[in-house]
């Protein structure tokens, strides 16, 4: 990770980052249009160190949001992968249920917010559901495509060598689909954070999204910026974790020349 940073950060990069904070700082101090209400970087750091770094409520927001992302993401995998496999392998099942799936797929996850609140008994479950929706459709479609892209030679070879159906499924089909599952996971984790933050702003009283929104409502711009940076960091960390899992799932990809 550090190496990656080093390779993308040369002296120009450092100058640019320093320049970014300098311009932000100057824009606030000079009260340029739009920046009058804004907190400058020093104020943000001060606020963070003084009131947030040791604040349980702040760290609890991290935990809450991470939990929601984790549950939504895991449920999406849990239901999405088998459904994608079924769509890909069972023609009758596909004919029966794919049209319904396609009907629901274009509805953006946030459009589900009101209905989700009506449907689910607790606020927490409705937010997890919306998060789930965000990742679910992407995962199903990726796995389904993955099944359709399986090389027929790979299946034929196994059949001609006398492999029974169960073995063909477990040792040929599943591994063929793993790269598509991985793509679904990468896209899924990104959209999960998008959705959870928006859902928290609309319909929750906790989490990093809510923290950020409160910064706006209470006219404390420092908090707003702390929230934004925290969300960015959380998304970055989640992506790193997912990437690590993916490379563990595909040991044969790590060694590619």
């Amino acid at each position, binding site marked *: 990770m550090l190496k990656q940073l080093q390779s993308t950060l040369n002296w120009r990069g450092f100058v640019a980052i320093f320049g970014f904070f300098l311009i932000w700082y100057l824009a606030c101090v000079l009260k340029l249009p739009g920046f009058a209400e804004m907190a400058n970087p020093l104020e943000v750091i001060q606020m963070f160190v003084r009131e947030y770094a040791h604040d349980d409520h702040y760290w609890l927001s991290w935990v809450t949001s991470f939990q929601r992302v984790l549950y939504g993401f895991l449920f999406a995998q849990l239901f999405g992968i088998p459904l994608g496999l079924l769509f890909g392998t069972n023609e009758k099942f596909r004919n029966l249920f794919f049209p319904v799936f396609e009907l629901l797929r274009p509805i953006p996850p946030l459009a589900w917010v009101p209905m989700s609140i009506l449907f689910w008994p607790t606020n927490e479950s409705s937010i997890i559901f919306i998060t789930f929706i965000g990742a679910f459709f992407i995962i199903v479609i990726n796995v389904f495509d993955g099944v359709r892209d399986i090389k027929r030679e790979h299946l034929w*070879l196994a*059949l001609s*060598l*006398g492999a029974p159906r169960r073995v063909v499924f477990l040792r040929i089909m599943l591994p063929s689909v793993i790269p598509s599952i991985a793509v679904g996971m990468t896209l899924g984790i990104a959209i999960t954070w998008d959705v959870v933050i928006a859902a928290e702003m609309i319909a929750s009283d906790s989490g990093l999204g809510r923290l950020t929104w409160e910064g706006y409502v209470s006219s404390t711009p420092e908090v707003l910026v702390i929230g934004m940076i925290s969300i960015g960091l959380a998304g970055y960390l989640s992506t790193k974790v997912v990437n690590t899992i993916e490379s563990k799932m595909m040991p*044969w990809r790590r*060694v*590619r020349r």
Partner: protein
Amino acid sequence: MAEGAALNTSEVHGTKSENAGIWLDQVSKSFASPDAGTIQVFQDLSVHFEPNQLHVVMGASGCGKSTLGYLLAGFISPDQGNVGLGPNPVRNPGPERLLVFQETALWPWMTVLDNVIFGPKVRGDADAKEAKHAAQGLLTKFGLADFADKYPDQLSGGMKRRAEIAQALINRPKVMILDEPFRGLDVMTREILQEYYLDLFEETRQTTVFITSELEEALFLADKIYIMGDQPARILDIIDVDLPRPRDFEVTVSKKYLEYKERAIERLFQSEES
């Protein structure tokens, strides 16, 4: 010479494997095509490939050579007619007639060793230890001993082809079908592998159907060349290549070789004109 050898059973690295002829009898096959309705690839095609010979099927690309291979291997079934092995018709794919694919079909998620022992392992023919031992023996013979634990993507093109031949041979098939196995390799690797396969064949006399679009490859390897024309696919000519075995590349400058070449080229041009 070929007749005499036909009576012997072949030996694949110490284990006897029975040989058999493979045939198509009045086979018709058509495919639905999105823009051209149905395409009749084969109509009443009958070919009999005798045992213990190296049969080379040669034709321009798109003439249905691969389809012929897939029919023999049982990956697709004929609309009409029969495909058979020895005295019996066969329907599904099976380990007694294995096809080496045009592009690599090694499973990238398995190591080379796991790829090779897949067949014996899933059929439970041999216990794991025995299968592993046999696979390692084959890999050593094929110069891949140090690559047993590598993944296919870590191998060069030529090594992949050798691994695939090992993956098929370990099952002691009665017939080997190779669908343009050396296509896409550089000239050097290609020539090395041709000689390599020729040595292997001359040692084992394993019934082989070798599909290619390269005339020189066909002449160098074959006992018999089947020149294929298209629409519908048919055998235009069968050339008995009576060049001495064991062969090496010197044979390609002999007078006989050049005569065969001329005849084959003539036949191919006729098929273009007709």
